[in-house]
Each structure stands twice: as structure tokens, then as C-alpha cells.
């Protein structure tokens, strides 16, 4: 036995978000796309020099004649994906979330979304999932994309959900933005008998004392935090909201209306313009005045560093989140 692995303390572009000893699956997006492509000949894969880092290389190897390497040109990637969709194909276009959201926005908006084209934009490094610094940390991608008409936005939690989301977003007619966890992706939701449904939030566990509403990797953090809180006799409900837009407001409002428990939204995103503010708006419109808090990234350009360090620093690690919740409750 070599003992526990030392905690990573250096910045890395590609750092696994899996915690020590967590079950993982390799490249769930790539494998799910290959499986789907067998029955959907119109699916093509396109990327801007990031096949390897978006798990699209699995598809490229399995279906080389359906893979388009567009080079390091994200505006072209999105425009060409629009053109492909106009000719009847369903492109899965991959890059990093920062480049899609910041650099290629106009092309996703006008070339793809305005015509409601069947392009699936799948992006790695959402929120704070790299220690590389602001050039690669898409801390505001949801804020940028939520305002885009016609666009469906999905933020899956784990490998199981990514596998299920791939056929679901392909079946949906219209553009989709999906935040991607890649590489060795944790497997968590298999223990909850969970099935992804586009547009639906799911109560993973109930609890009378606090309602945690979360998406993406923060759902696995919320589940662990709920376990930790149970030791303090605090029962936390966890409502997982993998579809950010359209938001399942009915389920969110019904859950928040129950028993006057406080509502905490946890997201791997800036507190500006993401799930937290979307939930707050839904609650306000429904006249629900629950105590409301957000666990999310600050409205700031974040530091470079090791992911575990940064997740602690910015409050989205399990321990930081649990500490925050204990203080609030």
C-alpha cells in the first residue's frame, strides 16, 4: 500500500473532479455518442482542435468519416455546424465552454439559434473545472447563454447522466448547449435509480430542514453535503436540475413551497445569471418568499491553482459547502 494519494496542489488544465476513491467512467460522452451514431446516421462530430479534451476523439476513432476537425477556429466551427444542420445533419460541435460562450456567441446565436437548427454544442471545462485561470474558466457561460432564445441548456451531474443526456438532446429538435465533464467522470446517480429527462428536475432525496437545488457537479457535492449534515441531524432535500433552460419551474416551485424550509441553490457557476438567479426569479414570480441563499462562484476573475484548493477557496467543495450550510441553518 502506498497510502492515500497526496492531494493535488498544482494547477492543471485537465484535472479530474473525481474525489478520492470515487467510482468513475471513462469518456462517457464519447462512448454514448458512438453508440447513438450507430442508429442515427445523420449525426456528425465537429470540433475546433479539442477532440481529445472533449472526449470526441472516441467518436473520431470509431467514425472517422463522420468526424470534422475544423481547426482552431470556433466561429467557423459554429457557422459550419449551422451549415451542416441546414443540409440535414445533426452536428455535435465541441470546444471549451469559454470559447463557445465568449468567442463564438454571435455564431451560435444568429447562425444556429435564430434558425432553430439542430446543432448540439457540447463544451468541456464548464464553471470552475480547470485551475488554468480565467482564460479557461467558464464561470459565466450559463449567464451568457440563458438569454439566447431557442437554446436548451443542460448541465449534467455525472457519467450516468451524460450517457443518458446524449440521446435525449439528439432527439430534441433544436439547438442545445451541454456542459461536459470529461475524462474520468464520477458515477454517482446510479445509486439513486435516476433517469435523465430533458426539461425535468428530479428530487434525489427528501429532507424537511433545507432544500438544496443544484445542477452539474454541484449535485454530487450537494448529496455529499446532505450526508454530512445528517450527522448534525439536519435533513436536506436535494433537487437536481440538469436542464437549466427551459427550467422546470413547476417542480422547483412545488418543492420550495413545501414546509417553509430554506432554499439553497448550489451551482458550478458565478452567482450572477446562473441557476441561482433563475430559481430566485421563478420563486419570486410564484410569490414564494423562502429564505434563499446561493452557493456559487464569486463575481470575479478567479485564481489559477489546483482545483481542490480553488473549490475550497470559492466555497464549492463538499467541506466548504457543508461549513457554509451549517453557518446559515
Amino acid at each position, binding site marked *: 500500500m502506498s497510502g492515500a494519494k497526496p492531494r493535488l496542489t498544482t494547477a492543471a488544465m485537465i484535472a479530474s473532479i473525481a474525489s478520492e476513491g470515487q467510482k468513475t467512467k471513462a469518456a462517457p460522452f464519447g462512448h454514448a455518442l458512438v453508440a447513438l451514431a450507430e442508429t442515427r446516421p445523420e449525426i456528425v462530430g465537429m470540433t475546433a482542435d479539442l477532440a481529445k479534451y472533449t472526449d470526441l476523439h472516441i467518436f473520431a476513432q470509431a467514425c472517422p468519416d463522420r468526424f470534422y476537425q*475544423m*481547426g482552431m477556429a470556433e*466561429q*467557423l466551427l459554429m*457557422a*459550419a455546424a449551422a*451549415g451542416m444542420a441546414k*443540409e440535414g445533419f445533426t452536428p455535435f460541435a465541441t470546444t471549451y465552454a469559454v470559447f463557445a460562450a465568449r468567442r463564438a456567441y454571435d*455564431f451560435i446565436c444568429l447562425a444556429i439559434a435564430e*434558425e432553430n437548427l439542430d446543432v448540439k454544442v457540447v463544451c468541456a471545462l464548464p464553471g470552475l473545472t480547470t485551475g488554468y485561470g480565467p482564460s479557461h474558466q467558464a464561470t459565466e457561460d450559463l449567464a451568457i447563454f440563458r438569454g439566447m432564445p431557442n437554446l436548451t441548456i443542460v448541465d449534467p451531474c455525472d457519467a450516468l447522466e451524460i450517457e443518458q443526456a446524449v440521446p435525449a438532446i439528439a432527439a430534441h429538435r433544436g439547438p442545445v448547449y451541454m456542459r461536459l465533464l470529461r475524462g474520468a467522470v464520477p458515477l454517482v446517480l446510479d445509486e439513486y435509480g435516476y433517469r435523465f429527462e430533458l426539461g425535468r428536475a428530479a428530487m434525489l432525496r427528501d429532507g424537511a430542514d433545507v432544500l438544496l437545488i443544484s445542477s452539474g457537479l454541484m449535485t454530487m457535492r450537494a448529496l455529499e453535503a446532505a450526508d454530512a449534515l445528517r450527522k448534525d441531524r439536519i435533513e436536506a432535500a436535494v433537487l437536481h436540475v440538469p436542464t437549466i433552460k427551459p427550467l422546470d419551474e413547476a417542480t422547483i416551485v412545488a418543492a420550495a413551497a413545501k414546509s417553509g424550509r430554506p432554499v439553497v441553490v448550489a451551482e458550478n457557476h458565478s452567482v450572477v445569471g446562473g441557476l441561482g438567479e433563475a430559481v430566485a426569479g421563478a420563486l419570486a414570480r410564484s410569490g414564494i418568499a423562502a429564505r434563499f441563499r446561493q452557493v456559487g462562484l464569486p463575481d470575479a476573475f478567479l485564481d489559477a491553482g489546483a482545483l481542490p484548493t480553488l473549490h475550497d477557496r470559492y466555497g464549492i467543495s463538499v467541506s466548504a459547502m457543508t461549513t457554509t450550510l451549517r453557518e446559515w441553518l
Partner: protein
Amino acid sequence: MSANAGLPNEPSLAERARRIRRNALRMGEIQGQGYIAQALGIADVLAVSYFHALRYHADDPHWEGRDRFLLSCGHYAIALYAALIEAGIIPEPELETYGVDDSRLPMSGMASYTPGMEVSGGSLGQGLGIGVGMALGLKRKHSGARVFNLMSDGELGEGATWEAAMSAAHWKLDNLVCIVDFNNQQADGPSTQMLCSEPLEAKWDAFGWFAQRVDGNDIDAVREAFDRARTLDEAKPRVIICDTRMACGVPFLEARERNHFLRVAPEEWQKALRIIEAEAAP
């Protein structure tokens, strides 16, 4: 096939261009202003496109085998509507609705509004990249259809244009034809003084394209350029840089220095239309 099959009774390309100018002026008169100088300038290129080069079915704008004509410069919509009316894709009486609320002919071209409008242009610099994707898609389908992308010279300033240019050559897209309307006029002044794209032919050539530069108001020269672009037996994309004169065909409008977005006095529309009508073949 296109409306121009070389039949003896078929109007000449010059007559088609004249009618496109007339249609555009009639639409411009309805709004009293607009991108009429661009429409008059590009009319000859559109006549060659729709009555010589493009394959399409006027009664079935979505016919799978059609050549795709992308209007990257969405503000040229008035020009394309004028051509689509002449081609029989849009009924002529509809020109009365140009730019009017709930019309199928909005002032900037959008795919969902208008039959024969392939893309929503207007965010300049997007058309060529979309064209790359369509040309790739057509090749995937083993289709013989071509993609023609019409862009304005101002769009040469957009970086995305050159991403797409590089990509088209990389993928050897011999089914893609880019038409650059070089009228040397954009919103703030002459294009060459805003962000100079010269030497333009050499640039496209260096990017791996078969490049031609012609007088875009010389119909024979334009037709020959389109023919060379269509028949070239080289696996590369093709560009035709068309030097055009703003407001070509209406001398008193041509003479205006700032004619990017023309304001024309009410009586001047009729004056312009009379000039165009006087050119009608006897």
C-alpha cells in the same frame, strides 16, 4: 433548371438586370430609403446568378437539388428580393409590402421569412462559414449542388471570413463559390480606407482559392467568370471579386458621394425609375 435555358424568347441578361433594378427601385420607393445603391450595383451579378448560373425550381424553393445562394450581407435583401421576384420565386405584387409590418420581405434578409432566402444574414462575416458547412454537407450527401455565398467588401474585415476561407481550401470545396461585391463603400466611408483588404485577389489566391476579379457591372465579364468558376477542374473553392459601382444605372445617384444608405427624395424615385424604364428593350 434555371429560368434561363437560352430559349429564343428569353429576355437577355441585361434585360433581367434592368428589371432587377426596377424591382429594387419600386421597393425602395415604398420605404423612401435603403440600401438601394448596393442593389443597383449588384443587379448585374444577380442577373447572371439567377438567369445563367444557378439551378433552381421557382415553384419549389426548397428543391433538394438546387444551388444554394447565401446572402451573407443581409442588408442587400432588397436586391435579392428584386431578383427572386424576377425569377418567379416571390410574386411581383408582394414588392409593395417591402419593409412593412408582417411582410415576408423584411429590410434585412432572414431565412424564416422569405422563400428563396437560404440564411439569416446581417451579422456580417457569417455567410461564408455557413457556406463551408453546407458545402461539406452537400459532399456528404454526394449532391452535385453548389453553394454561392454573396458577401460585401466590408465583410472582408471580419476575421471569421478568413477562418472560413482557410477552411474551404483545406476541405477542397470545389462546390463553393464566393462572390465578393467590391463597391468600396461601407457605413463609415470607402472600404479601402476603413480596413484595407488589398491586394485582394492575391489574398484569396494565397488562401488556396481560384480567384478572379472582374468588372461586376460588365455582364459578359461576370458571366464568363461564373462559367470559369463552374467548370474549373481543380479541387479548390472559387471566388469572384466583382468591382461594382454603387447605384449603377442611375447616374444622379451614382454621383452621390455618401451612398451607403441612400436617402432619396420622393420625386427622385420616379426620376430613377424613368431612367431604368428608358433602357427597356424595344
